Each structure stands twice: as structure tokens, then as C-alpha cells.
């Protein structure tokens, strides 16, 4: 009975954790930014990523320098942090002046990168299945659906990608339908309500300094 109380949340959280790993994979192969279908790209990445983690024990060691290096080089460039931050800020985005906006993007990107880097170690015993995705308009948003296999329950992870001058970039991840960016939106909204846009910047800086 208590199991039910915690179960759903747990599942959500596990999923958030797992999704990070896939994103990681995603980043690697898309670094080539050639004209490629986003689902091929996700699939190829997932394979390369899991192989990298399995063959390199240092990438399985949370907190190692190699991980942060790896993430900086391969993953960060594949994320559209501007867009992620704008979505997470929602209607509060326009309340921030350009200097504040820039600061929020930097600090939020730092938080996401730092927090989720260590999750890639978990990829070593997981496989990723990518569902075929149809791209109707070349420059529109695309959602690539994947499944992480290897735990008791497969975990559905969807990636929102957008095609820009620098190729496809990830701007949202939903895990079993749960959007990570939406969770941050509630947090940012609360902070803006209680202490304004500066409150968001201060909270992010404080968190990153921990």
C-alpha cells in the first residue's frame, strides 16, 4: 500500500535520471550536424553512448573529471539552453532584462549540466530503442520517441528537437510523459512571485555554488 504512495514518484524520478543518459548519447552523434533524420541521429547516438560508457570505466565513476569533460564536449553543444530556459521561464521571461536573461541561461545550463552529468554511468546496463519518427516540415519541432530497456519496466523518453542553423538541438525531454522543463517552470514561477527575476538568478547561483 505504501508502495503505491511512493511508486509513481519514484518512477518519475528514475525516468528523469535515465533520460539524462540518453540525452548524453544524443549529444555525441549529433555533434556532426550533418543533414540527418532526427530519429536516426538519436538512435546512432544512443548506441555510441552506451558503448562508450560500457568500455570506459572512468565514465562509470560519478564525479570523475572525465565525465564533466565528456559532457562539456559532447552533450552541452547539442542542447538549446536558450530555448530550454525560455520555456522554463514561461511568461516570466519577458520580465527579465537582456542581461538577466543571459545570466539565467548560463546559470540554468550550468545547473542542468552539473546535476545530470553523473547519471550517464547508469547507461552501462541499459539499451535504447528509438521509434521511427516522421519529419513533416524540415524546420519544425520534432519529437523523437525512445524506450530505455534493461530495468524491470521499460521507460519511455521523448526528446523535443528543433532544427536550427547549428543542426538539431534538444529543447525538452519528457520521461513517461513528464516534462523536466515543466517542473522547473513551477520553481521559477514561485521564485519570481516571491522575490522577482533576481530571485531566480540568486537561487541558481546559490545552487551552483553548493
Amino acid at each position, binding site marked *: *500500500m*505504501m*508502495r*503505491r*504512495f*511512493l*511508486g*509513481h*514518484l*519514484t*518512477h*518519475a*524520478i*528514475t525516468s*528523469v*535520471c535515465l533520460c539524462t543518459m540518453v540525452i548524453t548519447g544524443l549529444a555525441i552523434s549529433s555533434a556532426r550536424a550533418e543533414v540527418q533524420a532526427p530519429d536516426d541521429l538519436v538512435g546512432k547516438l544512443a548506441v555510441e553512448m552506451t558503448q562508450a560508457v560500457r568500455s570506459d570505466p572512468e565514465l562509470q565513476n560519478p564525479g570523475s573529471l572525465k565525465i564533466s569533460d565528456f559532457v562539456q564536449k559532447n552533450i552541452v553543444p547539442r542542447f538549446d539552453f536558450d530555448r530550454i530556459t*525560455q*520555456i522554463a521561464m*514561461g*511568461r516570466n*521571461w519577458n520580465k527579465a532584462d537582456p542581461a538577466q536573461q543571459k545570466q539565467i541561461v548560463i546559470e540554468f545550463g550550468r*545547473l*542542468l549540466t552539473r*546535476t*545530470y552529468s553523473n*547519471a550517464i554511468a547508469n547507461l552501462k546496463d541499459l539499451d535504447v530503442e528509438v521509434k521511427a519518427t516522421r519529419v513533416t516540415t524540415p524546420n519544425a*519541432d520534432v*519529437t523523437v520517441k525512445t524506450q530505455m530497456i534493461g530495468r*524491470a*519496466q*521499460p521507460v519511455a523518453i*521523448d526528446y*523535443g528537437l528543433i532544427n536550427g542553423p547549428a543542426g538539431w538541438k534538444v529543447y*525538452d525531454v*519528457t520521461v*513517461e*510523459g*513528464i*516534462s523536466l*522543463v*515543466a*517542473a*522547473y*517552470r*513551477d*520553481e521559477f514561477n*514561485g*521564485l519570481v512571485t516571491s522575490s522577482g527575476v533576481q530571485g531566480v538568478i540568486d*537561487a*541558481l547561483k546559490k*545552487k551552483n555554488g553548493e
Partner: protein
Amino acid sequence: MKRLVASLALLAALAPALASAAPLKKAKPVAVAAPIVEDEEPAAPNDALEPLNRVTFALNDGIDMVLVNPLVTLWNGVMPSFVRTGVSNFFNNLDDVYVGVNHVLQGNGSAAGADFERVAVNTTVGLGGLFDVGAKMGLHKVDGDFGQTLGAWGLPTGPYLILPLLGPSTLRETAGRSVRVMTDPRSYMDSVPSYSLMGIEYLQTRADTKANEGLIAASSLDRYVFVRNLYLQKRALLVKSARDKTSSAAATN
């Protein structure tokens, strides 16, 4: 049977409270699942009890720190991993019975069939549920509970509620959980075996989620808000999928 009636009576008693809990906004859909678009702001969470919830949330943190976390560490240290997996599977198997019942109540016969097939396989070949043979056969565990069923029947969530020890819930989910508790055979055992079994399940659940709790703590600015959002997104999605399945089943009849 008497107990089932008692559960339903309680439910009936709670229903008006639930309905009145969200009088202004009629079951507004929480924006989930679809990729977020900038101009589409999600509804503010129904958290009328936030001051109380934050107190309970802090209380739970305290209990975790002094009691639960040390016990979980001990549990993980003492029990070999195959035992922990077995314990986890065992309680999951019991839960699958309830999942099946709820799928029936939701009018989702095919899902219920798969749930009961899982129970049958895991209880027999899986040695009383210790091994999740069903998953290896492609019959994966699916979520389903009374709170979801109430939602599928149209009951609004009611306000968000943090329960002592048990964490995030809503008024509706709490009602659903009461039904579960009252129909749980453990509620009618002697107190020692009953509390032992519940305690073991609780510990194992917490052990399963420990890593994720760490990740949440590391990634959130206001953990209370972060957890609330993840929980409400998850619940809304579960109810939505149950409703979709129910209506599609009705359409084909």
C-alpha cells in the same frame, strides 16, 4: 465483502469533500505530455494547503534523516541484492492484483487481462512473486490504482496533500489509497506480522528510490515545488491514459 462495503462507504463520504475542494475550476486539464509551447501556460497547481504541506514535508525530511535513511542504509548493507530484488518483486506481484482490479473498474479489459496473466505467471513460475518472470516474457508491470480509477470516473484531484511518512498525494489519491488499505489483507492480520510486512515494503520502496531522491535534491531549487510538479504531472498523466482507454473501449462497443 463487508470490508469492501465499508471502503465504498468511506469513499462516498469523501466524494463531496473532494468535489467541493475544487469548486471554482472544473477539472481543468493540467498541461502535460505534449511538448511545451511558450504561449501555453500550464494551470497553477491546486495547493491550497501549501503552508500545512510544507510543514509535513519538513517533518518527513526530519523522519527520513533520523530514522528512514539509516534504516535504508542498514537494509541495503545487510540484504544481498537478490533478496532486495525478490522483496521488491514480491510486493509488486501483490500490487498487480490491485492493478488488475482497477483496470477492470476502468473498463479496460485487455489491460486487466495482461495484469492477471502477470500475476498468474509470477505467482507460479516466479515462485510466489519473487521473480518477475512476466517481464521477461514481455508482460511488463503497468501502473494502476484506485486514485487513478476515481480520476477516470471524473472525480477531480482536490488539493495537493503531503502525507506524513508517505509523502506526496492529493485528496483524491488519499481516498484511493484508503480503499487500498482497507482491502489489503495485511490490514486484517495480527499487528506484528501486519506491521512487519508493511515496514519491509516501506523500507524496500524507499531503498528503491534512494538514488532518485538524491538526484531531485541536487537538481531542484525549491524541492517542495519540484516534487509537487513531478507528482502532479505523473498523476494527471495516469488518469488521462485511463480516461483515453475507457472512452476508446466505449467507442468500439
